[in-house]
Structure formats: C-alpha cells, structure tokens
C-alpha cells in the first residue's frame, strides 16, 4: 500500500476526475453496444463541458445508472477497499434467454504508485488516453460485431453495472482477458480490463417432466422442437447456417447464437428424425407380434407368444390391422411427445417414461430363434439402435472443412480425364444399346 498522502485539494481533484472517468467509461462501453456507428465532432474551441478533451455525448440513462451504482458503493474507488466498477454486457433472445458476453472492469490497485505524477495535468491526460484506448478496444472484441447485427426478432444486447469483483464465471470456460490501459497515480494505479466470452453456446437448464438430461448438452430447445415438420425445416436451415454467407461472413462470431442453436438443433433433429422413423416403424412392428386374445396388448405388444408356433406374425397383423390402427396412432402420438425424454437418455427409455406410454419390448426376430444372441437378433437390434454418425460427433472447424473441400476438388480436377473417359464410355454403351434395340 502506498504511504504517500495527497493533499486535500489534489485528493478532491482526483475524486472528481475518477467519478467522471468512470461515468465516461460506462458511456463509451454502453454506446459501443447500441448497434450503430458513432461519430462526434472535433471542436477547435473548448466549450467548457467536455471532459478529458473528448467529444463523448452522454446518454442520460447511462449517466444516472452509473452515478447510482457509484453512489450505492460505500466507498469511492480510490479509497479502501477499492471496490472495482464493472459493466457487464449480455445478449438476450426473444425467449428471454440471456448469455453474458463480456465484463469490463475498472479497478484500483494501491500497491503500484508514482508520487511524481501530477493530478491536474498528468493524470487527467492519462485518463484521456485510457478512454481513447477504451474507444478503440470496444470495437475490437467479438461483441461489437454481434451488437451491430442485433434486432428485436433475433437478439438484443443489454448492460448491467455493479460495484465489486468482476464476475467471469458467466463467460464460459475459455474466456479471454485483455488490458485496455492503466493510469499510475501518486496513491495507486487504475487498471481497465475486459474479459470476454470466446465460445458462444447457451446453457440454460430446462427441467421438464423431472428430466434434466438436456443440461448436459448445454442446449436450449423449444417445446415444439421434435415435431416432424420442425425437424425437416431444421435440417434445411442447418445447411445454410453451416456455410457462412457473404452477409454473415464473420460467422461464428457475428451470429453465433443462431448458428450454434441451428447446428445443435439440426444434430438433434437428424438424430431424432433417424429415431422417430424407428419409433414409427417399431410401433408398426408391434402389430406383427401381437397375438389375438393377448390380454397384455398393447402393453406388451411385440412379445411373441409361443402359444401357437404355427401362426405366422404377418397373418396375425393382417387379421388385427383394422382393429389396431387407431390404437397405433394413439401410441405413436404419445411416443412423439415423449421423444425428447427418451432421446437424451441414450435410448434407454424403460426407466424414465410414464408406464402407460412406452413399454420396453424384447426384440424377437421373426423366422429366427428367440435367443437374443442370435445373429439375426443382433442385426435387427443394431438396425434399430445404430450409433450416431461420426460426422455429428466430430464437427470439423470451418478451416478444416474448407481444406477438405479444397483437397477433394484438387483430386477431382486431377482426374478430369478419367471422368471424361467414363462419361464417353457410358455414352457409347448407351448408343450401342439403342442401336441394338432398334
């Protein structure tokens, strides 16, 4: 801690400069996230109300909030315990989901000082330089490009001010931290830092039907996510989202929430669309194994009764098709509504679902042995529960994808003659076959 004591006049001046410095810093940060380009005039003649010789127009609401925040803090920043002043920027979607993007922090450290610095000249000018650095740095973080693309139907950028240690736990695992500037005073040092998120995925936990498995994926999914129509649309949208367009060329930073949501949504939708037809198929397959007069149907439909081995399953299906059609439709609807519960449990549906909706049925292959270790049974089981495609687990980065595509193009270009030869051969064969038929 510095032993140097400022005289009253200098201390009052430093207090006043600090207050305006913090308010101006808050103005710069908030105004840079409004989503529009700024321009202010250089004035050759000092008008008397511009602090730090910088033309920064104040938004009244921001000034009021900043002053209130500073006023609520029990001590000034330059007085112990030197509570930092923080401005937090976050993104909010129309569904009111919020993700913190960055935290700007102005702190005061009394372990570094320089008694030779004059408050009214050196420190005032240094504060001006640091505010200019702040102006430049606010345009250099990924949040700036995000904020330029905000709109009410996509997302909006919000701010929050507080006194205290900066909260960086909301910024995700691999957040980045940068220093914008520092000012050494006779009694300590101001430091202006920013910590910003580098991975833009939302992780809002949603508890539905007592299942919190969704949180492990860190994905926010709407209630109507798994309807069939939505799945098809999501797959189509994903093809556009994965390839950055010219207007969206700073992907993934410019619209990361949409891209990431779509990417994860499409993964899920592809998997679930892979799963959903299985379930539809499975419910149809139930009828093949249903035996007439089975009291357990539909609860244990699919259990192949050995009461009468001579009855072929398909014959039974034909006999019961009309009666079971309505029941099948009802069970299919129930399964689709509960599909999301099943999916994240890795296909293990027996433990988590309501007993009336879905019953685990042992796969008994028709025309085959009932032993589950039989090759045919294993084959049917592997068809019904295939592993996830590797391309949905390991997603190559944009650079890798582009390199891969370039490599493929190079290979194709090198083999142009072979392709031409193939086409001409096919053409010749086709013409020859036409001649033969004539």
């Amino acid at each position, binding site marked *: 801690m510095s032993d140097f004591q400022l005289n009253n006049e200098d201390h009052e001046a430093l207090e006043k400069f600090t207050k305006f410095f913090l308010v101006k810093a808050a103005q710069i940060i908030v105004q840079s996230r409004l989503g529009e*380009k*700024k*321009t*202010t*005039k*250089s*004035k*050759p*003649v*000092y*008008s008397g109300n*511009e602090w730090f*010789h*910088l*033309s920064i127009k104040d938004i009244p609401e921001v000034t009021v909030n900043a002053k209130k925040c500073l006023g609520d803090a029990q001590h000034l920043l330059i007085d112990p315990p030197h509570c930092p002043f923080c401005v937090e920027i976050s993104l909010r979607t129309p569904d009111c989901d919020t993700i913190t993007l960055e935290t700007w922090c102005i702190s005061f450290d009394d372990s570094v000082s*320089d008694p030779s610095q004059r408050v009214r000249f050196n420190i005032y000018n240094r504060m001006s*330089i*640091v505010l*200019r*650095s702040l*102006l*430049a*740095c606010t*345009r*250099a*973080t*990924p949040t*700036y*490009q995000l904020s*330029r693309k905000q709109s009410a139907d996509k997302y909006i950028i919000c701010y929050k001010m507080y006194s205290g240690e900066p909260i960086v736990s909301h910024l995700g695992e691999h957040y980045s931290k*940068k*220093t*914008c*500037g*520092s000012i*050494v005073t006779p009694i300590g040092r101001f430091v202006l830092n920013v910590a910003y998120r580098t991975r833009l995925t939302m992780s809002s936990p949603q508890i539905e039907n007592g299942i919190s498995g969704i949180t492990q994926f860190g994905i926010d999914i709407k209630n109507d996510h798994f309807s069939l129509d939505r799945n098809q649309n999501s797959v189509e949208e994903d093809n556009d989202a994965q390839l*950055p367009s010219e207007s969206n*060329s*700073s*992907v993934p*930073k*410019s619209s990361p929430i949409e891209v990431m949501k779509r990417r994860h949504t499409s993964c899920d939708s592809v998997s679930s669309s892979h799963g959903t037809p299985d379930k539809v198929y499975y419910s149809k397959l139930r009828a093949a194994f249903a035996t007439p007069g089975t009291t357990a149907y539909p609860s244990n439909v699919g259990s192949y009764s050995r009461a009468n081995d001579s009855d072929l399953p398909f014959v039974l299906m034909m006999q019961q098709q009309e009666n079971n059609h309505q029941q099948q439709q009802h069970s299919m609807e129930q399964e689709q509504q509960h599909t999301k519960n099943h999916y994240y449990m890795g296909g293990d549906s027996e433990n988590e679902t309501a007993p009336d909706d879905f019953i685990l049925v042992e796969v008994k292959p028709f025309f085959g042995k009932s032993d589950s270790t039989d090759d045919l049974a294993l084959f049917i089981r592997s068809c019904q529960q295939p592993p996830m495609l590797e391309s949905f687990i390991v997603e190559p980065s*944009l*650079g890798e994808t*582009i390199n891969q*595509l*370039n490599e493929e193009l190079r290979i194709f270009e090198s083999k142009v003659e072979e392709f031409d030869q193939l086409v001409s051969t096919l053409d010749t064969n086709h013409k020859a076959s036409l001649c033969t038929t004539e």
Partner: protein
Amino acid sequence: MNARSQTFEFAIEGRQIAEVISCMFHTILFHRCVGKYNTKGSDNYSVGTLGYTDIDCDYTDFTYIVTTSQELQQTISDKINQFQDKLRLSGLNSSGQITLEFYQKKKSGWMFKPEEIPWEIWTIKIEQMQLSSENERQFMREKLSDVLAERVFQITEIINKPDYVPKPPHLSELDLVFDTSYTDIQPYLFKINFSDTPTIANHVRTILKEAFNTSL
C-alpha cells in the same frame, strides 16, 4: 535518444492493404493527437475537443476508430493509397513496408533547418498474397478481423506504457512538437514513409541520409 519502434506484419490481399494500414495508423494517431490549442494571451490557452468516427472495413469484418478530422483523414488516405498503388503495380506477390514516424524538432542554429528527431516509429510490413478460391478469401476475411483486433489491443498496450512522449512546450514552440497546420485538431508531428521492398540497400541509404541530416 533512441526512438522506440514497433513492427506489425500482415500477409493480405491487395485490396485489403489500404484498410489494414488505415486501421493501424488511425488507431495510433487517435492516441497521438490532442485538441487544438487556442491561445488567449502569452501564457493562456485552451485545448479543443477531439471527436471520433467509426469506420467499417469493406474487405474484412472489422470497425476501427478515426479522429474526426477531414484534413487528417485526407493526409493519411493519400499516403496509404500511394503505397498501395505502388505495391500492387510491383507485382502480384510483392511486399513492402510503410512507417508512421513521430518526431520532434530541435533547433540547431539560425542557418540550418531544425533537426528532426524521431521518438516513436511504427512500421507495417505488408506481404501481398494472391488467393485462388472464394473459400480461401472468406477464410482470410475472417482471420484478418481477428488479427486486427489483436493488433488494436497491442497498440493500446504499447501506448499505455509509461514511455517517453514529448512534453507540451511553451506556446511559442508548439511547432517543435505538434503539427499545428490542422484547423480542428493537433497531432504530434508525424510523417509517413514507405518503400516497396525493404532491402539492405534501402536501409543503408536511409541511415546515411539521417546521418547527413543530423550532421548539418
């Protein structure tokens, strides 16, 4: 006194040259300007206010700050365009460097012109690349915005170090430290030099020229 120097290197397309250099130079100059001094008497003066403007890059997704001054922007733009044209005419994969040098003048006798002593030199080395596919161009566009962001933070880190900056002199000697030719702002004295290929011959030529000037 030795001038401190900093060099940034970029490997970019020809059309991105002007924007990259403009971003770097204007970020530096925004910190190396003061408001216009208005003298009210022999020792009284007031300092004007600096404005700023956001400029969007066309060939990369980045926005940078410039000091709001038509004259300053014109001066910088002319020099950068000359350098870009020279570099692009030199060939597709040519390289060059452009420097922004801050200096102060020192009077050295009534019959000699004041000595120019640099105190800070910023050098940008450009290597021109020729990209063959749209995918490469897109990749470069995104990568360049990250690089520019990193450079901006580096510039602010360097400028905020407690290194030498000329102290404002007496009002009568403002011209020794500041460029007072601008009507709305007052930057520190600076000049922009460039060469298409930084060769040893050019370097030796520059050293000899400086030695000759200082000896007069």
